[in-house]
């Protein structure tokens, strides 16, 4: 990697300078601008930076940032890892990540779903790690059936090894295009985007979850060698070992992310028991799942960007006496369209103290009213805490679920907690 041609070296240096400048002037973390400058000088830079490394590309609708973080955490067992941990998941971000770790042999790159085919061609990764596909920000994102088809085609032309969730029919169908695969039974809570066969459109038989098969064309779930047992918090390895997960990130979604991470780390030669020890060191990812203590109350921050994400967040809420704040915006990064609120089933919140906030709280209010969930409207987190403390001075915990920009606004208000 230190053997880059002169032009590529120059590109890389210029990119790093632009990134430093961006950070120094407080404009950003430099991941995007650095890569953009470098690409101008050497358009083939990503391929050159990737050469000679063992890369894993990580893509999905949900859990990309977390799983990228988990795999990197595991692979640091072997030394430095090149990774885009700030979540800049397009080629400019990949260039910055690789430029910043010139001597790292191993790399883990989070990749935006749309960019996966082109990044796959450019980087020739050892592994492509795929978790799930579901509806997300449809005013600007690709249709997921089309996305799965592009993944499948790109994987078919590659020589990579896919590590993928066998329980998500769209992901499995895409992964079946690859020449080599390791299948993980990582579960699928949100099924509304995969009732029909990705191959022929037939209505899938899914009565024995996690198995699925198409009665019309015969496509069926690939046999998984790794599995998660959520009820007993166990990872089952291909050797049949049953290892306690005991993660410090909550919920089934993170058990799934960890299982996929363990299968990937095993591809790099790390024993799953050791991987899990390392995964337990991760307690929060870019502010997600972290708690802030304000006015003597612990507020846990959960990010949920789409219906599948909201469903996972509901599953990790604290016991019913813990109040929950829901905050929804509809800025460009969130998707301008709030229709997805109607895909989420809020009835699980009945009987809980619920507050609604955010720029689109009226949408949320109508949605909750329709599901028979009582709620109160608020402007700010402090205001909610003030109200709660006045009624119950001993209150200690509140959960907060927010979509992307609503989450970032709250996170910024509490000092960009990690």
């Amino acid at each position: 990697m230190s053997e880059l041609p002169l032009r590529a070296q120059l590109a890389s240096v210029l990119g790093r300078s632009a990134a430093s400048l961006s950070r120094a002037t407080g404009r950003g973390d430099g991941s995007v601008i650095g890569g953009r400058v470098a690409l101008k000088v050497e358009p083939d830079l990503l391929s050159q930076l990737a050469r000679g490394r063992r890369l894993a590309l990580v893509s999905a609708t949900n859990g990309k940032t977390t799983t990228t973080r988990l795999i990197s955490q595991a692979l640091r067992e072997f030394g430095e890892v090149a990774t885009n941990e700030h979540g800049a998941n397009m080629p400019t971000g990949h260039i910055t990540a690789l430029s910043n770790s010139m001597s790292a042999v191993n790399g883990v790159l989070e990749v935006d779903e749309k960019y996966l085919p082109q990044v796959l061609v450019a980087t020739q990764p050892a592994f492509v790690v795929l978790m799930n596909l579901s509806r997300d920000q449809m005013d600007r994102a690709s249709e997921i059936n089309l996305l799965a088809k592009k993944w499948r085609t790109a994987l078919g032309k590659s020589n990579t090894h896919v590590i993928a969730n066998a329980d998500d029919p769209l992901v499995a169908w895409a992964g079946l295009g690859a020449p080599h695969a390791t299948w993980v039974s990582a579960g699928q809570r949100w099924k509304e985007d995969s009732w029909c066969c990705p191959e022929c459109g037939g209505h899938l038989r899914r009565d024995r979850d996690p198995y699925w098969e198409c009665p019309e064309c015969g496509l069926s779930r690939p046999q998984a060698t790794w599995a998660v047992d959520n009820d007993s918090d166990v990872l089952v390895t291909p050797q049949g070992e049953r290892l306690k997960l005991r993660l410090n990130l909550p919920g089934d979604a993170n058990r799934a992310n960890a299982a996929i991470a363990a299968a990937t780390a095993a591809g790099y030669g790390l024993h799953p028991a050791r991987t899990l020890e390392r995964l337990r060191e991760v307690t929060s990812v870019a502010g997600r799942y972290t708690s802030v203590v304000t006015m003597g109350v612990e507020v846990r921050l959960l990010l949920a960007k789409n219906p599948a994400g909201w469903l996972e967040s509901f599953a990790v809420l604290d016991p019913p006496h813990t109040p929950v704040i829901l905050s929804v915006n509809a800025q460009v990064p969130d998707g301008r369209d709030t229709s997805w609120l109607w895909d989420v089933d809020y009835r699980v919140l009945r009987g809980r103290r619920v507050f609604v906030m955010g720029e689109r709280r009226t949408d949320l209010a109508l949605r909750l009213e329709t599901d028979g969930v009582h709620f109160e409207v608020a402007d700010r987190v402090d205001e909610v805490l003030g109200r709660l403390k006045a009624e119950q001075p001993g209150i200690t915990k509140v959960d907060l679920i927010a979509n992307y920009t609503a989450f970032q606004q709250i996170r910024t208000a509490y000092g960009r907690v990690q």
Partner: protein
Amino acid sequence: MSNTSALRIVWIYPDLLSTYGDQGNVLILKRRAELRGIPTEVVRVNSSDHVPEQGDIYLLGGGEDRPQILAAERLRADGGLARAAARGACVFAVCAGYQIIGETYGDDEANPLPGVGILDIRSGRGESRAVGEIVADIDPALGGGRITGFENHQGRTAIGPSARPLSTTVVGTGNDGHTEGAYQGQVLGTYLHGPALPRNPHLADLLLSWRVGRIAPLQPSWGERLHEERLAAALRQ
């Protein structure tokens, strides 16, 4: 299942045509009926099932290109929806669902494909994608009023002599930049995708009144508030 006096709401192919909040139309019809003491029964019909003919209101949602084509093929082969419409049932279809209840619609390469043929419209593919908030004025023959919603489609729709435009476009694209949606008897379609009825409570009430006659007005609540808020936001743009 066998409550004969209940308003039967039939949700067509949630497995294929439920892309972005389409469930909202089912939930809001049910709620607004029940608030008036009208019992309801919701029937979910998957693409592997037959479409029952004795429903009151049939709902079709949006879908990506491939699910749309599959849904149209299956509905044509089944025949239940067309027979229900011929019987005079109400059909409310949004986005991809709107296109396929017409005479023809376009696939992803703009080839015309046959629709269910219960609404006299023909849809093709436009040059650009229409994405964003939309506002339109409903045909005064239907009682008038404004509708607002979100559109996200590349379709362009021409209305034949047996159907009428649902509304005149004020903001956004709709059928062609001039009109939005279409209706023919109690068959009504629109490009306002997903939760079109939650965002337009008066449109939900129009459909209900078609089935049960005069209905009492409801105390304004969050639905009316959201409607006002989104109208103001779209007109400010």
